[in-house]
């Protein structure tokens, strides 16, 4: 209930309690200030963990933000399976075996965009001023936030997989294959999030962050092997699909789930993860440290 109350309204509704006399404030304050403890600088890992905790607290306080993480994947899965399933494959159920790993990838790739959005909000609200003025390992704020988001990705992933199983998805790779596929996908999503972080820092408004991220992500997800077999596409588009990192992830996830994966397919995904981290993480940190 308090989540929707605007500050102005709450001012009217809840007057502040009578102030404590000044000398009492002074006394209690001096007690607090007397502690001149200066604990040792936290380790990089502990700082990341704290920032990750913050990302999780945000889910606790603003559960609405999970709506697009849950509703969107469910909608997409149902829509594509039943609208196009019959036309694209022999039956919706046959299509689901091909499509489910793909929709899993596209769902989570879409959610990674919200990482940049959150960062943009933090910068606008001044939270980052305080964080940047702390003597902690510099990348911790970003890495921690991204790790917290991995929890969201996992949630959405589990939902899509559960829905798929309910609709008749039967992975040949079994539980182990599905878990491994999910882990590969989470690794890629974490790496991809660096790109949106850059948008989050460079662009001024959340709207433009979302707009630009969408413009990048839309061709990447649709120009891939998520929805259909690329062999029906014109040659130039096939060429794009072949180099598209999303296609490589989909192939590997599909392979792991159906137990047909090759080392080469996995190698491509790891190569892309390395490229994304090596190129975009330093750019992000450069922008973050710019002042």
């Amino acid at each position, binding site marked *: 209930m*308090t*989540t929707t*109350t605007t*500050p102005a309204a*709450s*001012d009217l509704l809840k007057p*502040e*309690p009578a*102030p*404590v006399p*000044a000398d009492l*404030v*002074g006394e*209690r*304050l*001096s*007690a*607090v*200030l*007397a*502690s*001149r*403890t*200066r*604990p*040792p*600088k*936290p380790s990089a890992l*502990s*700082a990341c963990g*704290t*920032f990750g*905790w*913050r990302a999780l*607290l*945000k889910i606790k*306080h*603003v559960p609405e933000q999970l709506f697009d993480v849950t509703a969107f994947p469910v909608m997409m899965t149902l829509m594509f399976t039943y609208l196009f399933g019959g036309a694209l494959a022999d039956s919706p159920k046959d299509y689901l075996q091909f499509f489910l790993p793909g929709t899993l990838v596209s769902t989570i790739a879409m959610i990674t965009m919200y990482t940049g959005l959150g960062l943009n909000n*933090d910068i*606008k*609200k*001044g*939270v980052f*001023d*305080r*964080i*940047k*003025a*702390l*003597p*902690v390992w510099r990348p911790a704020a970003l890495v921690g936030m991204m790790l917290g988001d991995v929890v969201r990705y996992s949630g959405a992933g589990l939902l899509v997989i559960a829905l798929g199983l309910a609709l008749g998805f039967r992975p040949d790779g079994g539980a182990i294959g599905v878990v491994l596929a999910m882990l590969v996908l989470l690794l890629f999503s974490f790496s991809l999030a660096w790109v949106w972080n850059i948008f989050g820092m460079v662009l*001024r408004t959340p709207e433009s962050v979302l707009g630009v991220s969408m413009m990048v992500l839309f061709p990447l997800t649709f120009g891939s092997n998520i929805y259909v077999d690329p062999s029906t596409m014109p040659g130039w588009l096939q060429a794009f699909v072949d180099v598209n990192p999303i296609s490589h992830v989909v192939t590997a996830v599909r392979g792991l789930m159906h137990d047909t994966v090759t080392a080469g397919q996995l190698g491509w995904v790891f190569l892309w993860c390395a490229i994304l981290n090596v190129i975009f993480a330093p750019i992000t940190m450069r922008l973050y440290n710019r*002042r």
Partner: protein
Amino acid sequence: MTLGDQLAVEVSGLVKTFGKTRAVDGVDLMVPAGGVYGVLGPNGAGKTTTIRVLATLLAPDGGTARVLGHDVVREADAVRSRVSLTGQFASLDEDLSGTENLILLARLQGYGRSDAKKRAADLLGAFDLTEAAGRQVKTYSGGMRRRIDIAASIVVTPDLLFLDEPTTGLDPRSRSQVWDIVRALVAGGTTVLLTTQYLDEADQLADRIAVIEHGKVIAEGTSGELKAKVGGGALHVRLRDAAQRPEAARLLTAALGVPVTLESDPVALSVAVSDAEPVPAGLAELTRAGVRVSEFALGQPSLDEVFFALTGHPAGDDDAADDQPLTGKSKREAKKAAKKAKEHAA
């Protein structure tokens, strides 16, 4: 002890530009350790930019700045571990509760899990926020927000605290609470550098004041020294009948020995006085001559008067020169603050 040990802040020729705007244009500051140092100036004077450079959030384009003996560029981490900044706009996570915000900051500064919890509870108690501890910060009133913001800045008691316009936009009661907090901080041994648009705030709190305008320090000294430069204060008189104003002006000039300013309001006039002593006699003259006074006030010079005395022109209220582009929300707040400042000056 060398001179460097006694100075909390040593700034020389500091320059920071944003595009074509020279937000800070050669600021020199010497802030002694201990006590409160006030930086007084209108919106856009360069106060916030200066403070952000000192808190290592911005890199200067020219000049040098040393904070607690450390260079803000080369030894940024050493500065960060000993100073704290409370910005003009609440810089906490509004979605999190007060307790969670403080625990977060305590953990990031090396407190263990249970110590962080205890520190957060102690701070909330000291700032009279225990009741609101579990509520999201976005539900806090302006005064509570300011208090939790300051609490967040002293999770680890800093040696030097920057307070950027700590009372702008606050009601009088919250304002005096913030003043009490600042006094308690200083008593605890923390040096406070605060910026303000209000002369009386600087007067109430600061041991020394730097007046800054268009990115330059135009005057520096104790409040007494500045007032001596400005000329004490002003007597403001309002009459019941505008027709009696020339008569009143003549009488007051004769009684106080200084020229009278006729204000744009036809019943108002003001006199700059360096000494309050002859004022009652002057007012008595008016009564004796049958000039009917509806109200009078003897006040400190306003920020505008200080600027007028120091620069010969009123304080500029130039938002465009202020820092980086403001967001919609902070723009609104800045406007509100500017309006408040004007009301205050009036």
